[in-house]
């Protein structure tokens, strides 16, 4: 199995999307769903190949003298690839309802960029070296830029400018120098078990600076102060926020950091030299501070955005703790959080389409009008908080175990505190919707989201529960990571 | 005697240069430039460069003066009655000149027969002593110009050709009237798209 195949469906579908265009919308969306299923099947094949211990890799394309583009599958990447391809299908189903219900403009451009972004995510997931990952990372930024500015009004262009500026500045101004530094020091950019910097002879100070360049340079991981783009980008249509800002874009960021820690620095190097000593507090601060900010937001999407920032920093923190358990927890949290958060975003979008409400304060009593949506919202919230019967619990447990293993209990405190805050800012939303009477009398009967959207919401909420019950396939997969 | 002539002529050159800087009348400037070339040509004779002297007198003094006068018949004769002596320009020029003078300090003296330029075995010496056999011309300058460095001369011809078509494209073949009578839209004016279209349709 060649991982290059994963690029084929999303790229191949683009001509079809353009060809069908606005005239044959059903055909257009059907072609995307077929491509999505094909992609899922390919990823599944790669998954079974990796589980069976086969080597999955592509040929290489040399773009600079000593560095080349190359794809190969390793456990974390397979997991990320599976996740993104599965959620692409679900999101497409959801967007059919949303985009038509909302009468959005330029739907064809939207779907084209979306497919392009998915192809880039696949390239990032299966990147065999840092250069390939960087290329894919930049491509994701560029291909999602038209999605953020989709509406074309002043607000969205402003958001788009901020988006591009922060992500590009971070990646070119900080991340690229770090990469060149690594290339100069280690002579290679390949991802290798145990890292490539162990023998490079860098001092602790150098390593600390390098690590900081990486963590802050990967702006998609939204560690403060590089987080500003994320809430701003919420002007995008909800399916974009859902897939790209709960899964593809932000998860590429943390995924990059996880890969860097595992395969470039090596967890032993980070934990023994203490290179992360100065970066960890900033990340922990981000966890707490963004939870607190989320608390103050009345706009539902904004609250979810800040919650995302906080959850991303969990993963970064897990990576920086640099123990096997915490890194696994971080990787697992990519999936767990993705399902929880995408459910929440879907619900927010559904509420916007059906009730035209954006603020939490207006949601009192809405449980009666949208019971299914609100129930799913509840499950998603549990997933984020990490309470049974939803999936987030496993990853949080692993991260907590990891911080114990690293011998510094203070990070557990951070986790606990933010979990409490999670409860405080997420749970009241469904509770108010179900139990608080509405301010104004409401029309009787349900006014649920469009059927395709509702299906999508139900699927992701179910997945949250299923992953709680059956986390083994993922655990087994992550067990295959070579640490040294 | 030679020394005396050189010194006198050099002094003339300096005086003319000062005159050009100071005078505002363009016609006087052009005439002085012609004179400058002529005196330079005389100096070239003193320095044994007779061919160059001929050319300088004919081209530098003759043709270019005619060109200047021709151009001036279409434009103005006066520079604006204002001095624009810029400090920046003076500083730049003085620095450049100082650098040049610094460079000459350890140069072979004027007329030194042992300077690298005179003793290069494959250039000067070759030209002077082998060219009669190789080209059969007594005038070494001609033989170098036409044979050894004939390619430069070819380049020179191309330069003249380029200048010719450049002037042709800028001014056209249409006869120009002096400034007072020039019509509003003089021929050869900047072509506009409309003009182009009309030409194509006609």
């Amino acid at each position, binding site marked *: 199995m060649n991982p290059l195949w994963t690029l084929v469906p999303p790229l191949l579908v683009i001509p079809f999307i353009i060809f069908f265009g606005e005239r044959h919308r059903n055909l257009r969306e059907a072609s995307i769903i077929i491509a999505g299923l094909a992609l899922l099947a390919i990823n599944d094949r790669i998954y079974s190949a990796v589980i069976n211990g086969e080597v999955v890799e592509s040929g290489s394309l040399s773009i600079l003298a000593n560095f080349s583009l190359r794809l190969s599958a390793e456990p974390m990447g397979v997991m990320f690839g599976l996740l993104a391809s599965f959620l692409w299908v679900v999101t497409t189903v959801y967007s059919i309802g949303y985009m038509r219900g909302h009468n959005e403009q330029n739907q064809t451009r939207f779907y084209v960029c979306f497919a392009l972004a998915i192809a880039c995510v696949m390239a990032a997931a299966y990147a065999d070296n840092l250069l390939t990952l960087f290329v894919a990372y930049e491509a994701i930024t560029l291909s999602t830029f038209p999605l953020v500015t989709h509406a074309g009004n002043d607000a969205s262009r402003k958001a788009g400018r901020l988006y591009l500026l922060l992500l590009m500045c971070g990646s070119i101004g900080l991340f690229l120098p770090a990469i060149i530094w690594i290339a100069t020091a280690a002579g290679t950019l390949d991802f290798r078990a145990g890292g490539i910097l162990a023998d490079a002879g860098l001092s602790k100070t150098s390593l600390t600076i390098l690590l900081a360049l990486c963590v802050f340079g990967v702006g998609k991981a939204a560690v403060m102060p590089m987080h500003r783009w994320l809430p701003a980008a919420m002007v995008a249509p909800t399916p974009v926020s859902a897939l790209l800002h709960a899964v593809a874009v932000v998860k590429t960021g943390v995924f990059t950091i996880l890969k860097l820690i595992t395969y470039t620095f090596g967890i032993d190097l980070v934990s023994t030299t203490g290179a992360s000593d100065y970066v960890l507090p900033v990340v922990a601060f981000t966890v707490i501070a963004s939870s607190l900010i989320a608390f103050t937001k009345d706009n539902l999407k904004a609250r979810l955005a800040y919650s995302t920032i906080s959850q991303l920093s969990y993963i970064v923190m897990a990576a920086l703790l640099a123990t096997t358990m915490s890194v696994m927890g971080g990787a697992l949290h990519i999936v767990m959080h993705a399902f929880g958060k995408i459910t929440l975003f879907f619900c927010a979008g559904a509420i916007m389409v059906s009730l035209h409400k954006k603020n939490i304060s207006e949601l009192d009593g809405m449980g009666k009008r949208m019971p299914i949506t609100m129930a799913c919202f509840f499950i998603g919230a549990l997933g984020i908080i990490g309470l049974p019967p939803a999936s987030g619990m496993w990853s949080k447990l692993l991260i907590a175990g990891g911080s114990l293993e690293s011998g510094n209990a203070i990070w557990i405190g951070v986790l606990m505190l933010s979990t409490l805050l999670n409860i405080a800012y997420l749970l009241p939303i469904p509770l108010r919707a179900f139990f608080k009477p509405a301010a104004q009398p409401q029309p009787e009967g349900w006014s649920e989201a469009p059927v395709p959207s509702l299906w999508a919401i139900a699927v992701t909420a179910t997945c949250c529960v299923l992953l709680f019950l059956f986390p083994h396939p993922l655990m087994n997969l992550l067990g295959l990571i070579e640490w040294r | 005697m030679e020394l005396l002539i050189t010194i006198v002529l050099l002094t003339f050159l300096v005086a003319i240069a000062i005159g*050009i800087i100071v005078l505002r009348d363009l016609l006087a400037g052009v005439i002085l430039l012609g004179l*400058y070339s002529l005196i330079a040509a005389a100096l070239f004779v003193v*320095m044994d*460069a007779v061919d160059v002297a001929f050319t*300088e007198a004919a081209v530098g003094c003759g043709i*270019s003066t005619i060109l200047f006068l021709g151009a001036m018949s279409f434009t103005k004769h006066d520079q604006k009655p204002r001095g624009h002596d810029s400090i920046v320009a003076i500083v730049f020029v003085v620095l450049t000149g100082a650098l040049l003078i610094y460079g000459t300090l350890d140069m072979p003296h004027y007329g030194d027969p042992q300077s690298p330029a005179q003793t290069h075995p494959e250039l000067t010496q070759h030209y002077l002593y082998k060219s009669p056999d190789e080209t059969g011309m007594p*005038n070494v300058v001609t033989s170098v110009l036409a044979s050894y460095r004939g390619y430069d001369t070819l380049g020179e011809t191309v330069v003249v050709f380029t200048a010719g078509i450049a002037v042709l494209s800028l001014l056209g073949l249409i006869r120009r009237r002096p400034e007072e009578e020039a019509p509003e839209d003089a021929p050869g004016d900047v072509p506009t798209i409309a003009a182009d279209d009309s030409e194509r349709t006609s």
Partner: protein
Amino acid sequence: MSILGLYNYWIVIILMMAGLYILIARYNLIKKMIGLGVFQTSIFYLYISLGKVQGGSAPILADGVTVYSNPLPHVLILTAIVVGVATTAVALALIVRIYESYNTIEEDEIKAIEALERDL
């Protein structure tokens, strides 16, 4: 002749700089070209004086003459003179066109006109 040893070069350099100064500092376009003429003629003089050999004669081979001046600079300068005049011709043609379009050949006035156009 030794007085001329380096003094000769210095005078030429001063002349060159006079030409360069006119070229840079004068606003009148024709005056600039006069400056360029002085500048280039002085450079030619520098080259020719490099080729002079004391007591030598013009490099036209003749019996009984043993010392010749260096012919190579002469050849170079023959080319350079023609190139210089070609440049002057193009420049003057440009000046005529500029005068037709702007009705002035003073650089500061042209700049003022152009600045006005840019604001529009």
